[in-house]
């Protein structure tokens, strides 16, 4: 099992979710995040004074997946999140040693199907 984590633009979250649902993903965790990549932040100007905001608002999408579905999930996120501009985000996957469905107690792949 793996955990797919994607950091995407806030305005692309609907497209990402639709792409994942089309691929067959049944559940995900979405949270607000802040960060920056190569493009760094932005500058705000209030009454002539400049304020640098390094951390841009982003959305973090997390999906638990069986090994064979990971590549397809990553492709789905890319298809939904990509605009071709700086700031489109990052996707990474990590190994997950165990997953448990709280309601039934199922463990492993059956817990995330």
């Amino acid at each position: 099992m793996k955990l797919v984590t994607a950091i995407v633009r806030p305005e692309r979250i609907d497209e990402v979710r639709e792409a994942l649902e089309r691929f067959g993903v049944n559940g995900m965790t979405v949270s607000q995040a802040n960060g920056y990549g190569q493009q760094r932040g932005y500058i705000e100007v209030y009454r002539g004074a400049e304020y640098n905001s390094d951390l841009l608002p982003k959305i973090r999408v997390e999906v638990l997946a069986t090994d064979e579905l990971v590549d397809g999930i990553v492709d789905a996120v890319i298809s939904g999140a990509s605009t071709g501009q700086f700031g489109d985000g990052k996707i990474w996957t990590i190994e997950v040693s165990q997953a448990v469905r709280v309601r039934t107690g199922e463990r492993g792949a059956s817990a995330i199907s």
Partner: protein
Amino acid sequence: MNPVFFSVGLDVNPQTLDPGATAWMLAASALVLLMTPGLAFFYGGLVRMKSVLNIMMMSFGAIGVVAVVWALWGYGLAFGPDTLGGFIGDPFANFGLSGLASVIGGKAPGLPDMVFIGFQATFAIITVALISGAVAERVRFGPWLLFAGLWVTIVYAPIAHWVWGGGLFGSTGIIGSKISALDFAGGTVVHMNAGMAGLMLAVVLGKRLGFMKDPNIRPHNLPFVMLGAGLLWFGWFGFNAGSELAADGIAALAWTNTLLATSAALLGWLLVERLRDGHATSLGAASGAVAGLVAVTPACGFVDPIGAIVIGVIAGAVCALAIGLKFKIGLDDSLDVVAVHFVGGLWGTLSLGFFAVPSAKTEGGLFYGGGLTQFWPQILTALMVTAWTAIMTTLIGLAIHKTVGMRVKEHEELTGIDITEHAETAYELAMVGGSFNPGEPQNGKTPSSSGEPETSSNGKTDRMRSKAST
């Protein structure tokens, strides 16, 4: 015969009451009072999220204190019979407004004195509230209320007496009998006064922690700022047009000039921003509008519409440029009260020397055939008001600061003045856990009155107290 008058025992002669003017002035007074809650929104949006309730409370607190002080002795000091050679009015002649309930035409033809008293009370209220913007996010609420009461008594009331109350600058006053300065609706009494008081109080209290370093010290809610500016503009029609104390052509001129100067100032500020910063901002539009309102205040009944537009566009540009001075000299005038109200008020006061239209009260300004005759009285008035305000505000501020303490403690400022002074937060963005304990206040203590986490009677550490001390 109006039964309402007789039911409250007032001796009113309907022959002398001007119903039209009275109705207008009652409405104008309410409009001016609305400016202070409007200011609360204007200032509220300009501070950080953790300070919005406190700065709004400083405005609302000013309403409470000043209205009561005004009724007890403030009105007498400002508009009572001359004492000390016209320096102040007699606060005891009508203490508590006694004997004034049935007077009609005492201060303006056809108006019950109570209308005039209420109208002037709203001016005193907003003048005090304006000062709070210079010292936002670092003043203890109780000492602020004490300052409000002392300042309106010692600084505002005498100046109001000089300019409007028949004192030094009145037509029979020591100075006013020789020169004739103009101030239609309060450029000196309200705006220069509040701006200079804000400057001196900011000097007394010092900078906020993180001033010119912390990028989080910036406006947290620009829609609030726009809402507040809109309410101020709305109320300012009562402020300026109401200052005629009648429903007549001069009031209409003041109303129109208030529209025109404000609009021109909005454009002037945005032009400076576009050229200097590359963007015309919403904060610039709101700030420019306020700068125009300030500048046209002393002039609105004495200039023609073209004069109002020129006064406005210059006010917007000058105030926008003046904002940058606080960073150059390192003065933390939190919300730019000095740049907008003192500079705007000074410009408006001096502008009458150029743009005043000839009338019964003036030969006219430089551009209207009067030469510089109107210019010098304007300068002298501005200097006297500035000097009195600067000296007395400093003394009042130091007296409070050195005795009961006016500034919050460092950890309280870092935690946020809303939670430490008022035990409230404006926005609950991420609350987890906690408890609810109805009817058992913690002995009236504020969450961080001790500065350390405290343990409640049930042995558990209070969530808010822990939060406030970290």
